[in-house]
Structures are given as structure tokens and as C-alpha cells.
């Protein structure tokens, strides 16, 4: 991936920056310019909640190129406390420690690296609240 393509997503991937429709209140991750609920173009940047609950999840055994050494890993849809949904890895736990509804919080983690001399990807993962 090129440096600018990685760099321009940093606010969302490092700090959970999303957007909120000033007209109807709907929130989005990543940020959007147009509200798909009401059609308004009046959206503002917001920092999203760092805690939420698992809506559904899966454990990956057959990975895409670049994720081979992390197998098995857990991916989930999390609904943040402000109602925004996000796709994330669940980290620092075993699959039998989570279920639909488990409370989780955001942590900053390495996602993967692009070979020996490429970009190292960082971003959010979520971890169960104990």
C-alpha cells in the first residue's frame, strides 16, 4: 500500500474519528460527507466511543495473504456505546471467552506488516472488559 493511502486513514484507525449528521444525529465510521439516512451534507467530525458490545463474531482459520501468522484470530462487529458500528479484531482473549453481547474496549495494536521493508499497519482492536 502507498504511504499516502495509509496515512490518510490514520485519524480513523488510530483515534476512532467518525462523523455525525448535524441534521438527524446518525453517526458513521469511517467519516462520510453525505448522510445516508437523511441525505444531509451537513456532517461534523466526532470522536467515537471507545467501548461497546459484540454484535456478532467469527474466528478466521483460512486467512488472506498477509495474515497467515496470526491464525486463528477473532473478527467481530462491535456496536459502540454511541450506536456506531465498527468491524474489528478482538484481541487478548480466547474464542471461548466471548459471546454476543460481551463488553469490549478499544486498544491500539499492530495489525500486520507488509513484508520486511514495507509499511507496518497499526490501528484499533478491541479487548473484552474484565
Amino acid at each position: 500500500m502507498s504511504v499516502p493511502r495509509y496515512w490518510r486513514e490514520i485519524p480513523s484507525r488510530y483515534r476512532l474519528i467518525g462523523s455525525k449528521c448535524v441534521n438527524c444525529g446518525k453517526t458513521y465510521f469511517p467519516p462520510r460527507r453525505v448522510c445516508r439516512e437523511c441525505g444531509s451534507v451537513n456532517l461534523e467530525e466526532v470522536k467515537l466511543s471507545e467501548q461497546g458490545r459484540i454484535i456478532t463474531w467469527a474466528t478466521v482459520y483460512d486467512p488472506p495473504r498477509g495474515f497467515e501468522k496470526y491464525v486463528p484470530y477473532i473478527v467481530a462487529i462491535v456496536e459502540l456505546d454511541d450506536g456506531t458500528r465498527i468491524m474489528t479484531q478482538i484481541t487478548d482473549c480466547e474464542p471461548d471467552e466471548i459471546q454476543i453481547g460481551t463488553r469490549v474496549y478499544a486498544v491500539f495494536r499492530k495489525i500486520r506488516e507488509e513484508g520486511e521493508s514495507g509499511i507496518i499497519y497499526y490501528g484499533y482492536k478491541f479487548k473484552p472488559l474484565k
Partner: protein
Amino acid sequence: MRKVAVIAVGYTKVKEHWGLSIRDLFTEAAIMALNEVTIDRVDALYVGNMSSGYCQHQEHLGALMADYIGLKSPPAVKIEAAGASGGMALREGIQAVASGFHDFVVVGGVEKMSDVLTPDITYAMAMAADQEYEAFIGVTFAALNAMIKRAYQHKFGVSDELIATLPVHCHDMASKNPYAQYPFKITIEQVLSSPFVAEPLRLLECSSPADGAAILILCPLEKAKEFTDTPIEIAGVGAATDAIALYQRDDLTTFKATIEAANMAYKMAHTKPEEVDVAEIHDSFSITGVISLEDLGFFKKGTATKAISEGEITPGGKVAVNTFGGLKARGHPVGATGVYQVAEVVKQLRGEAGKNQVDDAEIGLTQNIGGVGGTVTVYIFRRID
């Protein structure tokens, strides 16, 4: 708007064709279709394909295929909508003929996946998802469908055994289709003991990488009888889109785009789910097929697997589904799948479906999904007596 008919079909066996290139596959299917009718010209070609850029480093498929199948320099273009590329290519062809812009159109679909290794195919298929916020973190296409399966089971309390009935059914059908990738039967026990690809989805619940090509020839219905005794009318046309990122959907147990596309197609064809005799649905994963049977209106939400276990989707049941094996067992050469489905329904309505022929089949339906419901096409076909 003119009515449109399918006057010829062709397709290759679905398998890993080590000796054939992507252009060879397309050509083999085209020769079969062009042998069915005698027409003196082709006005346009539409090629459904998802991943030739990634798997073969080959784009510009429209012109390439037009040249290799011997057409005289018609306008030709590749149509890409992930797994619904074939279905959307057909839509372009229908619009061209219905509008009166063209009379004779070739619609094809092709995918050649065996040129790359499995992790690369997994990567290529994840391109149907949101690259920056799903694929970036290692979400696979199977994982998205596994998340849907977990949400569905949580909501409706349906067992793994019941969901396994769909792949078992598809393999039963494929066992009598010589063009199928996996022409043999499997059991529920085999499904449930196969390894996880993405838990809770197991290997025998997932379609596999495959190579294949399928072709249709379209013309105005009013001219169709000049070329074939058994034209099949494209009576209903529907397509819709939705957020491609699964996490941006409110309800994970239904595909809104299927419902919208189906409503359009039923309305245009003046028919309803109860009148459909044969259906080819998009079972890229067991759960995807189960949800589709419900979204298409054949069964109420949460009840499709019980209906499958009671024989409702076998020939002679309420609606004969995936009588050539579906994506699971006929195979899922991604950009070709939507075209295979139509070719198979045409065979059923002509009475040429072989051992799985449905008696007196008159109305057929196909449903083709791109991504996890980001694009869906639904078509309804009618036999002309």
C-alpha cells in the same frame, strides 16, 4: 420497451481447468452457445468477471473476448460487481435489447481462479468487501458470512444440522450434473465434521475456487422464434445495492438488496414466489443460501432450513432449487456464476435439464449476489408455448 428472450446458452464444466486460460474458457462456452443458433451478426458483448486483473493481470476483457470468439469488432465491455458481475452483465444486455439499441447481444461470464494460490484467492475475494475498514484488519469473505451465520442462529435458534441440509441438497443435485465441479453426494455428518474455514462456517458449507465460463445469446422476443423453437422470455428484471460493508447494516439476517430486487422482478413479471417452479439461488455459503430462500419470499424468516429438511426444495417440492448443484456443488466461478444460473434455468424451462428435470417447469428465477449483499440481481424467466 421490447420484451427480451434468451435464444442460446453455453457453458464449460466447472473445475480447475489447468490446461485452459481465461480466454480458452470463454471461447469454449461461446462456441457451444453460437452452435445453438444461426445469427449473422452480434451487436454487442458484455463480459461479467470479477478478478481477471488480480488473477491473470489481464483487464480489457471485452475487446479480448470479442476478438477470440470471432466477433466482427462489436462494442464490448467487462462488467464488474463482485459475485454479481454475471448478473449485472446480463442486465446490460437486456437493457440494450429492450431499448431497441441492439438486436443481438452476447452476455458472458468468466472466472479463472486456479492461476493463483489459495491465500491470493482469499485476498482477491475480500476485495468485494470494504478494503479500508474490513479487509484491512484481516476480515475474509468467509468470516463475513460466518458472522451472518452466528447472528442468524442467535436470532432464530436454528441448529448447525439444519443449516447443513442446504449443501447436502446441492450436492445431491450436482451428482446428476456432468458439468458440476463436485458431482457427488455428501452427508450432514461430513459437513459437520469438516474443518472450520471461519468458525462457525465449515469447509463443506463454503463454495470453492473454480474456473468456468457461461454464455447467453439474447434477442428481441418478437424475433426469437426465427432462431429457436424454444425461446425463453426474460419476464422480470430486478437489481439493487446496499452498503458493501457488513458492519454498516442494521439487520444481519436479511439482505435488503435481495428483497428489493425480487420485488422489482416479481412485479415486472406479474408473478409471485408461489408460482416459481425452479430457482437458482446464490448459496456461496450455506447461510447465504438459507437467507436468500427467505428473502426471495419462498419461506418465512427463520423457517427455510426446516423446509429444506422436509424436501420442499427438491424437484416435486414447493420450489425446485439449485437443480444443477448451486454455487456449492456446480461450483462458483465468481463472475460467471450469475450467467450459469440463467443458462441452467433456461435448460429447465426448455425441458433439457436431464435427470433433475422439473415436470412442466414454466416459471424460473435466478438470484445472484455480489459481496455480502452489496449488489443483488433477480431475474424471472418464462417458457413461451
